[in-house]
């Protein structure tokens, strides 16, 4: 394995966590803000431009983090898995309208997981850096299939899919607040499942395979099963994220929304946020999704009018790049570790 990747995939030195009641209180506060305070105060702009894309990309990052961060299986197929989730959910909603929305969403995720399982098969023979190649192939192939085979998009003239009405138990979820509620609930449910999974025997097997495949095999960890289950779960989570991206965020998408750039975005999210850290996916998504928006607001407030639009945008990109490099030098293990150090400087 090349040293750079070995370093990237190395176990993260986790800060010692505070006592359980403190964490529980913090978590309860976070949930209260997300479920109660935000719906009371947020505007359309906050929902559509900030909160919904942030939550969905955090979920996509979480999916990749399970595969790559916890189980050490590098993948550039996140965009493809998101596409599968989106197109599968679309077809379930369209062709089986009697299914309730959560079932279609979960079904889309499971189908994406199944595709991820197939894409993950080469991981049984190919290791580390080289595993990126088959996942990259899947990324291109799946995007191409959705673009070419009209059946998946119900023969729409431009292969774009559009959300049917989002209704659950009689509630119309197509308003910004409704779509936020759908996204937040999905993200919370998946997060709880991921948290339980990571702490279970499966999660321990993943980490064992990541940290030393031969050693893991010697002590009796089912390596093949661990790898494939990591691909399955990671792709399923990304699939749910893709379905939400298509229906809760954009409304109408085509396969281009899930191109290689999206896979890279998910990978940057977890590298910057922190590999094998659940909260790292959220912190990384906040950084990657929100910093450019923040820079736009800052530069408009500070420089508005004095420079032309193109120069301001280029300045923002330079600043964004510099911030990424700065943070990674300060803390190669990601922002999650950096925040952990801030909370516990002595340790």
């Amino acid at each position, binding site marked *: 394995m090349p040293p750079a990747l070995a370093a990237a995939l190395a176990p993260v030195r986790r800060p010692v966590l505070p006592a359980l009641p403190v964490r529980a209180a913090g978590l309860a506060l976070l949930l209260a803000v997300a479920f109660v305070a935000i719906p009371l105060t947020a*505007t*359309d*702009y*906050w929902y*559509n*431009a*900030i909160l919904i*894309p942030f939550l969905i990309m955090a979920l996509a990052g979480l999916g990749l983090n399970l595969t790559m961060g916890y189980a050490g299986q590098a993948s550039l197929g996140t965009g493809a898995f998101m596409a599968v989730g989106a197109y599968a959910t679309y077809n379930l909603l*369209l062709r089986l309208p009697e299914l309730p929305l959560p079932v279609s969403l979960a079904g889309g995720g499971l189908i994406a997981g199944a595709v991820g399982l197939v894409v993950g098969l080469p991981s049984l023979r190919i290791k580390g850096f080289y595993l990126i190649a088959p996942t990259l192939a899947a990324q291109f192939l799946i995007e191409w299939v959705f*673009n070419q085979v009209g059946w998946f998009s*119900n023969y729409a*003239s*431009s*292969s*774009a899919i*559009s959300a*049917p*009405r989002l209704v659950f138990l009689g509630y119309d979820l*197509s*308003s910004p607040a409704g779509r936020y509620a759908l996204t937040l609930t999905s993200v919370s449910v998946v997060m709880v499942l991921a948290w339980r999974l990571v702490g279970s025997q499966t999660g321990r097997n993943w980490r064992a395979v990541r940290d030393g495949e031969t050693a893991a095999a010697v002590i009796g960890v089912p390596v093949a099963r661990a790898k494939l289950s990591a691909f399955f779960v990671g792709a399923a989570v990304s699939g749910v994220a893709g379905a939400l991206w298509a229906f809760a*965020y*954009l*409304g*109408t*998408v*085509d*396969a*281009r*929304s899930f191109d290689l750039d999206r896979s890279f975005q998910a990978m940057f999210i977890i590298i910057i946020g922190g590999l094998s850290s659940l909260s790292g996916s959220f912190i990384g998504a906040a950084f990657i*999704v929100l910093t*450019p*928006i*923040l820079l*736009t*607001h*800052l530069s*408009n*407030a500070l420089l508005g009018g004095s420079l*032309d*639009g*193109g120069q*301001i*945008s*280029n300045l923002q*990109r330079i600043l964004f790049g510099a911030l990424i490099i700065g943070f990674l030098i300060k803390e190669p293990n990601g922002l999650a570790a950096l925040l952990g150090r*801030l909370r516990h*400087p002595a340790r």
Partner: protein
Amino acid sequence: MSRLSRVLGAAALAASLTAPFSLPSAAFAQEAGAPAAKQYIPLATYRVGAYASSGTPVWGGTIDYLRYLNEVEGGINGVKLTWEECETEWAVEKGVECYERLKGGRDGSPVPLFLPHGDPITKALTEKSAADKIPLLTTGYGRTEAIDGRVFPYSFTVLFSFWSEASSAINYIAEQVGGKDKLKGLKIATVYHDSPYGKETQVPLDLLAKTYGFENIQIAVPHPGNDQSAQWARIRQIKPDWVFLRGWGVMTPVAIKTAAKTGFPVDHIIGGIWSGSEEDVRPAGSVGKGYLAITPFPAGAEFGILKKIKAAIVDQGKSDLKDLKSFGSVYYNSGVIETIIAVEAIRTAQARFGKRPLTGEETQWGLEHLVLDEARLKELGADGLVQPLRLSIKDHEGGGAGKVLQWDGAKWNIVSKGWVKSDRELLLPVIYERAAAYAREKGITPRSEDTAEASAK
């Protein structure tokens, strides 16, 4: 650093980070005050990123025309215009962010319409804009089905849809060979960018091939189209009579160069809307001479309105263009044309709702009642530049004609006799069918002309 100062530092950082987000709400607070006299128009631009070179001249045309209106004509019926740019980089997330940020209006003026500038952004905004009652105006791109305003009340695929583009290209070929009956037996190959945009013309070309009896050959070029030797080798084999080139970005110059290399006559290639600008042919060099393109944005600086803009804005050093060579180019003129349509829609709506900054709902009425006939276009100095348009609830396209340009090695010349019309009577029923299917899938009840009129009151 002590723990306390760390906490304080973090708090200060958090405060400074969240502060800018509260700015827009402060700006909106002024809405309650007296109505401002200025009409606000948000501009979603892409001056950076992969397509910046094609975007920059468009905003040049748009902003120069807006400046001309403010400085020479005193705005629209005395209502001055104000605008603000938002950078999208042609990316859908940034486009949605821009739309959400700007849709509330500014300084008391609501948003009359939104120019999304980007096919994926348009798709993502279709439903959001309908919910917010802000018309999306797309010229030379956008959803073809949105021509049916009964299903898409707030999407306006004005001017020249991709289906009309295909049909007009075929009709130009018919003119060249001596009539539509001579199309029978011709081989017409479409070389297209393999993307939703590129495939958009397959259905209408199929239909036209069945109607006129020409052979319809479809050849895909994968994105980005840096190497097309395989595609043009196939063309060499098939020997089509004409090639219709629907490219995007780098694909067009590479296609022209490869065609010349394989010996296909460049003057039998007709580029589509997004393969027909100076930026598309210049990189091909001298072999591009004779290349044709069909476009709703005729190039040239000799149109009346362009002369006026030149005298009042460009020659005074007030142009938004950094490179004045782009003045009168296809993209520059597309910005002018798009803005003329937007401004005339606002003017139409002002006649009904009053001379003040208008809302999206009011401008939607203006767009659906927009009439730009020859006489009005002459008044504007836009005859020959903008095709005659008549929009209605059932027809959000209005025109559906293009002009054919030919590259002489240095600039474009108009070679078609006036506007080449498309076979809209043939295409519209299919478009309506597709819109109806969309309505069924989405559970939308299409408006009728009566209900639309009632809601406008």
